């Protein structure tokens, strides 16, 4: 196995730590069923990419996923992870090197957060101190304060926090491949958006090979480097990048599945990264209030973004709220909605609509502050994209031939 250092900051340079997956003519027939649930699925998943499996229920997407860690044994065909045939390996050993994240986290209720995350390292024979260190590091990675959360039991956590721990458990032994089975299906939309953003920023650091089953096309478009759209019997309807799936659906099935209003779906393609961020006045916790007010007024700002010692936004008060204060208070505004820079414009609009500033704070790696995004930036971007698209269509129409990729049912 490619044992990349568990020290995430060392691997933050974006080296691919994943390995590729190759499925060749994989068939799964359940006893007593005439039609195979998965019929001759062949697929190459490149190292370091997120591939989303999506399709109607009963299309075999979950079966296909579970065959990758042999929770379901294929009837025939070959699956190779990192070039090695997975059938040649001891099944428990295989699974310890393939992360597995399940809907709702599926944490063991009688174990603490630390114990849940430490299971696989324990199985691999890591010593206690190394495991403990790794647990804290992973909790940081999924934005949970280790001191506060490591000794809690799952039922003392919210759904979103449980799911974060579930992701941490999947990453525990630093596996090159991670399988996710509808990981964010059981949480509310706002939490889901946050978790998706976090997954993207984690992925940016770690570059694992992630295979994720979902039933949510927006999630597939947002998270996927590639999307695999499956029809009944795990027949590949289309396997391509989100952009290509939206721009050129391979057939009617995909078109129906992706849904009407693909222009709106473009909002799920564009990231905040693509926008120009505004940079209003910022202040550090504990700074002198009068000084901050002077700075803001000089900039013509009516509010300031307050950052903590690690540059994470904690509050976004109006200047008048600071009147009569000595120092910038360090209270965390729990309602402050932040957006990861990998969030989609869809997410951004959602968040801005509920924000009292009509704008949203954007954060980057490890929740560090990057700037502020407002409505104008989004609408400008949409207009620009629309223009570009229509120009493209005008020029491409005569030659427009969609790439027919694996559409043979």
């Amino acid at each position, binding site marked *: 196995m490619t044992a990349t250092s568990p020290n995430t900051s060392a691997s933050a340079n974006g080296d691919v730590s994943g390995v590729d997956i190759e499925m060749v003519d994989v068939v799964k027939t359940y006893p007593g069923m005439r039609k195979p649930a998965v019929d001759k699925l062949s697929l190459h998943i490149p190292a370091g990419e997120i591939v989303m499996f999506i399709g109607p229920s009963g299309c075999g997407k979950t079966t296909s996923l579970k065959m990758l860690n042999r929770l379901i044994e294929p009837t025939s065909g070959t699956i190779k992870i990192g070039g090695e045939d997975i059938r040649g390996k001891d099944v428990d050993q*295989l699974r*310890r090197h393939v992360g597995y994240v*399940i809907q709702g986290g599926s944490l*063991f*209720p*009688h174990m*603490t957060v630390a114990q849940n995350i430490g*299971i696989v390292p324990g199985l691999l024979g890591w010593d206690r101190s190394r495991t403990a260190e790794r647990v804290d590091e992973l909790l940081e990675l999924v934005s949970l304060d280790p001191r506060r959360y490591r000794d809690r039991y*799952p039922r003392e956590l919210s759904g979103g926090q449980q799911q974060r721990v579930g992701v941490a458990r999947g990453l525990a032994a630093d596996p090159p491949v991670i399988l996710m089975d509808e990981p964010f299906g059981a949480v509310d939309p706002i939490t889901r958006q946050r978790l998706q953003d976090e997954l993207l920023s984690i992925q940016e650091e770690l570059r694992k090979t992630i295979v994720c089953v979902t039933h949510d096309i927006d999630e597939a478009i947002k998270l996927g480097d590639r999307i695999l759209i499956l029809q009944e019997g795990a027949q590949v309807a289309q396997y391509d990048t989100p952009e290509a799936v939206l721009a050129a659906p391979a057939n009617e099935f995909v078109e129906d599945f992706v849904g009407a209003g693909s222009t709106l779906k473009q909002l799920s393609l564009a990231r905040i990264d693509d926008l120009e961020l505004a940079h209003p006045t910022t202040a550090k916790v504990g700074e002198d209030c009068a000084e901050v007010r002077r700075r803001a007024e000089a900039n013509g700002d009516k509010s300031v973004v307050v950052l903590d010692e690690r540059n994470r936004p904690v509050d976004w008060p109006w200047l008048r709220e600071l009147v009569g204060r000595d120092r910038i208070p360090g209270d965390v505004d729990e309602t402050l909605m932040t957006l990861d820079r990998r969030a989609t414009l869809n997410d951004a609009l959602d968040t801005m609509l509920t924000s009292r500033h009509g704008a949203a704070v954007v954060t980057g790696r490890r929740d560090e502050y990057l700037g502020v995004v407002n409505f104008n930036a989004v609408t400008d971007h949409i207009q620009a994209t629309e223009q570009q698209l229509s120009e493209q269509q005008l020029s491409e129409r005569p030659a427009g031939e969609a790439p027919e990729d694996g559409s043979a049912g």
Partner: protein
Amino acid sequence: MSTAEDTSAAAPDTALDEAAAKPGNARESRLLLFVLPGVVALVFGAWLWWRAIADLDSIEARQLEAGLIMSLIWQHIKVTLVSTAFVLAIAIPLGIALTRPHFRRAAPVAVGIANAGQAAPSIGLIVLLAIWLGFGFWTAVAGLTLYAILPVLRNTITGLQGVDQTLVEAGRGIGMSGAGVLFRIELPLALPVIMTGVRTALVLLVGTATLVTFINAGGLGTLIVTGITLFRYPVLVSGALLVALLALLIDWAGRVLERVARPKGI
């Protein structure tokens, strides 16, 4: 209602336990946990006091002599605990086996047999065994064991079946072996249900152990039988009372055990 609010306000630190079970149940069991030993001690004290001042004839005095009572109580506890140990050693592994995929189909049959064991009149079971195996302690243990397997077996099966299958799959999916999942996930999660079965078995055994005096295995039943045959009511009532107190005490011990064994976090 006001008293209920008072107690919950007075014990905010027990909120964790409250959430685990229905609030009513939790309160009831907590009450029993504290009150039971007190009641037992009180009644036993009263009996001792009566024993000291009562006007007894020579037969009664000999039957209720402290040394004899102590040895009867000890015999009673011993036959109960040894039978319980056998019950656990048989019923829990059997319950585990009957929830594994290969034997799952046999579970109803096994529960049916255990059911029959419990439905048979205990005195009949014990006497029949004695005719077959001879009188004495080990025959008593065999009879009691057969009689009390059912609750533990049934609760082991129910408890294990009640474990969320997605957790089992999650355990296997992250690379735990079948045995690992059984011992680290399934059994801990099923433990509260299993322990309830164990407590039921204990209470059943301590009561039924009264009958083993008929096959020369001693116990507090001896006092009752003597009291009846000799028309000595103080002896009869003392025997009955002591058995009742012992049963309450064992029930209490079972509850404490349930508490202690319940994994944190569930």
